[in-house]
């Protein structure tokens, strides 16, 4: 059984904030396949397309038949711990600060043996469930969980290094006014976030769920307009040093592409909120978060962008919004690279049409705010980088991976619901 973590003490401002050190992030190109799978929390290994042999470590040619066709496939995650050690002395600064560190050899039911991190509740010689997650350097690593769930298992200190669990962390959610805000605040409250800041633009203007929001334990409404640089900077000055998870939830969306709009006014608003809003937030909150990646139990852990899946492929019916989403998506990759030295995860949650006013004419299926909120919290608990929520988003990414050009043509045939 894992000892549950306790709420961290109030920070002593005279003490030095620990610098984030990182585990080794050097990998061969083949090994990055594990990282790509870990971004979505999938346990995948190379499987020879010709002879079916499962390969590990990642390589360039099959060690059974020399085929170079080694696609990555989902692998049954079962195995057994056949040897273990507790590392007490390490040449790496990152591990030195975190010893003792449990490591083991697991023989996979699928064939190969792997060296992996081992959860404290796995018994000697016990059955394990392997997961593939991103470590603080942003690279995929294998981690052995006990085959059966144990009490407080998510509080294992080695596992917490791979996740961005909201428990006892302080969260900022932008755009209290959006339909998602209430569901997000409820989900974070349920996940035991200690404070949930909700950024609110034009606070004097009423909106339906304000009272419900304010009633959630731990919620604090704070003024924030992501289109106003000064507003963003002021809030960052106030709470930037205690924002552990930031959920960039602001979105401006109007129907239409190019020729059915007579001007660039909405397009400019879409860029102001969806693209420049992300950049303003990142410029104001990013440096402090990146500097607090190793700041104890409630260290800065993750940055969440809620993005339209049409960032991947333009839906002409929402053509200008899709373009602004694509800009935000591209910028998120830049943010990810800039946050990485601090060990802060950037998680993009891609959604199809959400169940709200502006998507009203679009046909189902649509993503309900509560489903989106659950996906955000689950993704943080798993430490993911990419989450596709809802049938539309999952279908689109499958098609995109199979062939972006084919998808582009398909998208132009997609009915925008007359929007």
């Amino acid at each position: 059984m894992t000892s549950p973590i306790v709420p961290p003490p109030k920070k002593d401002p005279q003490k030095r904030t620990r610098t984030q050190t990182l585990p080794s992030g050097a990998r061969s190109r083949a090994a990055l396949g594990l990282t790509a799978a870990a971004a979505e929390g999938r346990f995948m290994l190379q499987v020879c397309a010709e002879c079916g042999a499962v390969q590990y470590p990642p390589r360039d040619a099959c060690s059974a038949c020399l085929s170079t066709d080694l696609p990555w496939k989902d692998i049954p995650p079962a195995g057994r711990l056949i040897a273990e050690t507790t590392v007490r002395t390490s040449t790496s600064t990152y591990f030195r600060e975190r010893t003792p560190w449990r490591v083991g050899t697991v023989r996979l039911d699928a064939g190969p043996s792997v060296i992996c991190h081992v959860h404290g509740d796995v018994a000697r010689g016990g059955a394990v469930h392997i997961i593939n997650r991103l470590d603080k350097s942003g690279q995929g690593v294998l981690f052995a969980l006990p085959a059966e769930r144990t009490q407080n298992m998510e509080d294992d200190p080695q596992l917490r290094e791979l996740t961005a669990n909201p428990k006892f962390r302080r969260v900022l959610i932008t755009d209290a006014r959006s339909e998602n805000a209430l569901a997000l605040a409820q989900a974070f409250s349920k996940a035991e976030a200690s404070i949930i800041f909700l950024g609110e633009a034009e606070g004097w203007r009423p909106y339906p769920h304000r009272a419900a929001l304010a009633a959630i334990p731990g919620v604090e409404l704070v003024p924030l307009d992501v289109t106003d640089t000064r507003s963003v900077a002021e809030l960052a000055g106030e709470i930037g040093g205690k924002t552990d998870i930031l959920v960039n939830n602001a979105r401006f969306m109007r129907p239409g592409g190019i020729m059915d709009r007579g001007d660039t006014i909405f397009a400019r608003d879409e860029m102001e909120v969806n693209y420049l809003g992300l950049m303003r937030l990142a410029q104001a909150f990013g440096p402090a978060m990146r500097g607090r990646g190793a700041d104890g139990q409630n260290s800065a852990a993750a940055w969440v962008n809620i993005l339209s899946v049409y960032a991947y492929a333009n839906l002409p019916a929402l053509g200008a919004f899709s373009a602004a989403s694509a800009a935000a998506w591209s910028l998120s990759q830049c943010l990810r690279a800039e946050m990485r030295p601090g060990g802060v995860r950037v998680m993009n949650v891609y959604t199809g049409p959400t169940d709200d006013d502006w998507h009203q004419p679009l046909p189902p299926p649509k993503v309900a705010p509560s489903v989106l909120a659950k996906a955000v919290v689950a993704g943080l608990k798993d430490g993911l980088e990419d989450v596709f929520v809802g049938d539309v988003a999952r279908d689109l990414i499958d098609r995109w991976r199979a062939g972006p050009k084919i998808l582009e043509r398909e998208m132009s045939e997609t009915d925008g619901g007359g929007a």
Partner: protein
Amino acid sequence: MAGRRHRRQSYDGVVLAAPATVPYQRFSKETAHWWIARALRQSLQAAGMTLRDVDGFSVASFSLFPDTAVGLTQHLGLTPRWLDHIPMGGASGVAALRRAARAVQAGDADVVACVSGDTNHVDSFRRMLSSFSRFAQDASYPYGAGGPNACFALLTDHYMTSYGARREDFGRICIAQRDNALKNPHAVMKTPLSLDQYMEARMISDPIALFDCVMPVSGAEAFLVMREQDARAAGLPHAHIRSTIERHNAFPDDPIQMRGGWAMDVDELYAMADARPDDIDLLQTYDDYPVISMMQMEDLGFCKKGEGPAFVRQHDLTIGGDFPHNTSGGQLSAGQAGAAGGFIGLVEAIRQVIRTAGPTQVPDARTALVSGFGVINFDRGVCSDAAIISGAA
């Protein structure tokens, strides 16, 4: 391997001479080039030769970068007609011997200088570990960065669970080697080691504790391979090569390493030498951790698989004992000088069988078995080899 059709050619007419060890240092500001030059010079001096007498050159080193054996020819002023660079770490000594012996036998070279050496700067061990091999970089170093300590801890843990070995059994190997090292003036470890001290040492990577680990040092080793008639003409004491084996990536389907490549080829090793384990006067195993020495005792036929713990309990492994093992103190007590760790046992074995080992000399040593083990590419040592050598009858 059983069933091989062609009998291998013997090494008759080729001998090993002029063993040289440059005393090790914990840290050095010098380079691998410097250490290799020292060992080469010492070996040539012992043989009464100059650089011009050497027409074959074989090098093993981890810290020569960006140079290889090629750069060393110009750096050291050699003009060889046969050149080799051996990247096999702890298996490099026997591998160098095998290649050089065949070159001399075939007439491609007359005198091959086999040299290994590495420098150890402050922090160079950490730098080497993080980029040791591609599989290590991708699949073992990110997991705790325990380096070889952690990899061998896993093998040791598995071995203990499978065969009921206890820490004390590994302690016997370490303590006997420390005893041997006290007789070796150049050993890095100079104080006696008791079983209590061994058992109470701090854990490094469970069940590997402090005295199971080698000390990375700077150092170099060398020997010459030449025709027997030339050695005789020069009046050089020399050792005969009676047999050798070499194997890489043996038993890849074993889920974790429990045996090395020796187990595949051990019958041929003794058959080619026309010898039995009983004929071996001393054994030099590759000993970066005691578990692997124990595996070599098993895989080289001194006892059955799993009987290593009982074997070390029943034998005295010191210089004066009934089973002299790693007589210079081995890497565990003399230090691990990078790739020279693949030479330390062989160079000491040559000294033993030509009776020039001095304070570590095993009385009446005539035949020695030397085994090498190298390169933890991912989860296990990939290279293994062995040789039986004898001095004059």
